[in-house]
């Protein structure tokens, strides 16, 4: 995919998100810096508790930020916005949630669930127009118009996730934050949902922020990947670069945990365990450094030298 590198859609600067105040203050996410370009899929990968969902929610304005800036389309959005601006942002950034059974209103019909955003923002001319829009989107996600008058409990997990996607995409957003949209689904259904997300991206130049814990899924769908651990981004690179040259030991441990569907190789596999104590940051403080164009690692000076050496040798080998 060719992404125009200059066209930044979302940009996070020195973002910090904390909960509580004073002695109780807990910093969940700190020093987060990254740009998401228009039309790309940017993945945020980390374990539970690493803060990946917190970042996603902050972008939507659900979690307040304690420091730093979130810019969307060139305008800061994590401050007090006018009513009009707020409406604009709410419409342009949509979210797909992890658990399709908990995120749909059990007492509303599918028709209402999908149209709710349209109602809120009066995005239709007449009742006829609304119905036509809803019918179009439900067919695009692979369901039938007759499903509109049913309730969420009548659908399987994969179908509900399609409804979640339809509800987000009917708003014609610029950015979709997909928070583990396939973790709760069977392997065979995952493929359907991922293909659907890709299809929409091709058709309407959507931008995705994809949040996940499993690197194997992310490789297929993303253009760039950021690895997050304990509230900090540790490594950020193009997908193939990250898989071929994982520099940070935590990234290596995540990669080693991906199951290999091959009996022989899976049995030889060595699990890399990451231990934060392996870094000695007492003297030299770590920074987020660009060790190769587009490839960032969180490290201190000696580590940086070591990583650069590895990359250099790597380069010589491929030549």
């Amino acid at each position, binding site marked *: *995919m060719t992404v125009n590198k200059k066209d930044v859609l979302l940009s996070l600067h020195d973002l910090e998100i904390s909960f509580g105040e004073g002695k109780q203050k807990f910093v969940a996410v700190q020093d987060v810096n990254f740009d998401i370009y228009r039309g790309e899929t940017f993945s945020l990968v980390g*374990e*539970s*508790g690493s803060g990946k969902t917190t970042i996603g929610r902050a972008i939507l304005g659900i979690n307040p930020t304690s420091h730093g800036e979130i810019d969307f389309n060139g305008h800061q959005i994590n401050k007090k916005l006018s009513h009009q601006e707020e409406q604009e942002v709410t419409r342009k950034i949509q979210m797909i949630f992890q658990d399709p059974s908990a995120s749909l209103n059990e007492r509303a019909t599918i028709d209402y669930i999908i149209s709710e955003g349209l109602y809120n923002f009066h995005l239709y001319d007449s009742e006829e127009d609304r119905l036509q829009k809803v019918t179009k989107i439900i067919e695009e996600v692979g369901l039938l118009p007759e499903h509109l008058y049913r309730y969420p409990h009548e659908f*399987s*997990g994969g179908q509900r996730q399609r409804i979640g996607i339809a509800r987000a995409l009917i708003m014609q957003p610029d950015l979709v934050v997909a928070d583990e949209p396939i973790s709760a689904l*069977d*392997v*065979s*259904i*995952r*493929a*359907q949902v*991922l*293909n659907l997300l*890709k299809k929409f991206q091709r058709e309407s130049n959507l931008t995705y922020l994809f949040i996940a*814990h*499993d*690197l*194997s*899924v992310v*490789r*297929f769908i993303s253009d760039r990947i950021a690895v997050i651990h304990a509230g900090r981004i540790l490594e950020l690179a193009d*997908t*193939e670069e990250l*898989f*071929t*040259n*994982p520099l940070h030991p935590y990234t*290596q*441990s*995540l*990669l*080693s*945990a*991906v*199951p*290999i*569907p*091959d*009996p*022989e*190789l*899976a*049995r030889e*596999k060595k*699990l*890399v365990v990451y231990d934060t104590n392996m870094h000695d940051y007492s003297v030299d403080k770590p920074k987020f450094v660009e060790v190769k164009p587009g490839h960032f690692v969180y490290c201190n000076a000696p580590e940086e030298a070591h990583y650069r050496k*590895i990359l250099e*040798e*790597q380069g010589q*080998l491929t030549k």
Partner: protein
Amino acid sequence: MTEKSILTVKDLSVGFHVRGRELKAIRNVSLELKDQETLAIVGESGSGKSVLTKTFTGMLEQNGYISHGTIDYDGQRLSDLKKDKDWEGIRGKEIATIFQDPMTSLDPIKTIGSQIAEVVIKHQGKSKKEAKEIAIDLMDRTGIPNAAARYNEYPFEYSGGMRQRIVIAIALACHPKVLICDEPTTALDVTIQAQILELIKELQKDYHFTTIFITHDLGVVASIADRIAVMYSGEIIEVGTCREIFYDPRHPYTWSLLSSLPQLAQKGGELYSIPGTPPSLYKDIKGDAFAPRNPFAMKVDFEAEPPMFQVSPTHFAKTWLLDPRAPKVEKPALIQNLHERFVKTLERDNRLHAETEEMEAEEHDGK
């Protein structure tokens, strides 16, 4: 693994009464579980994999019943046991189960230690003091750091992976002969999942139990299964050794399951997804249950149910494609040369790993 069978299922059918209708969850399943092996049961949701193993411990829901067939365990006919009292000596003691969600399988208002000790006291008749020692030892064995100090903590103070370790410790407290793991890692992160799989493998070496591992993800079982049984709409459609299922699968459904693994996806392309949905289990299924979704389906697949064909002494598959009269069909290109392809990807990706390890080794030697 020994050749002795520990559990034998013959022609088992299970039904459920659902609002005046009959749902056939399991249809004529036969299975032999060998002593100390790891058998993986793989299938989509609704394929009956959990229902099948629930019959081994008498934990079918109220409206479920065995309509046909037998289950024999160690000289006892489990399919004849009716009352909870009859099950007491089997459930938990001989055959234990680990469930998917470690939060709901622990009691939130009891300490971790007391939940393990309780089982030891009940099943092994130990005193409170002995039970505590055994419990701490079990916590140690399942990889809980500083076990003695964490004995008095509550489940909410443990992470998901830790809780699953405790659930395993409880299951092992009575030294069961068979351990059923029902999607034990589905609710966990990949890193934790890998650790729990390692743990189960290690414990199996020490405790010599037989494992039944239930999952929907074939990728997970490659490292631990000796044999794999693939289930589809209540039937076992293919069973074989781990190598046979991965390198020489014969049933089109197994092909689809393998093809949909995200690890096989090519960038920029489409992920393979199985068209259609599984059949309704309320209706009688005519022919091969997978036929409507099978791109290789023949006319006979819609008319007659295929028998179990034997591929090798350990490998069986239920598809008409194995009939001598059937046309020769190759498995899809996507899953051919699986091994060679993964070797290639790993070589490309892990080149760096190998090197850093070497470098570290050299440094070490230098010191």
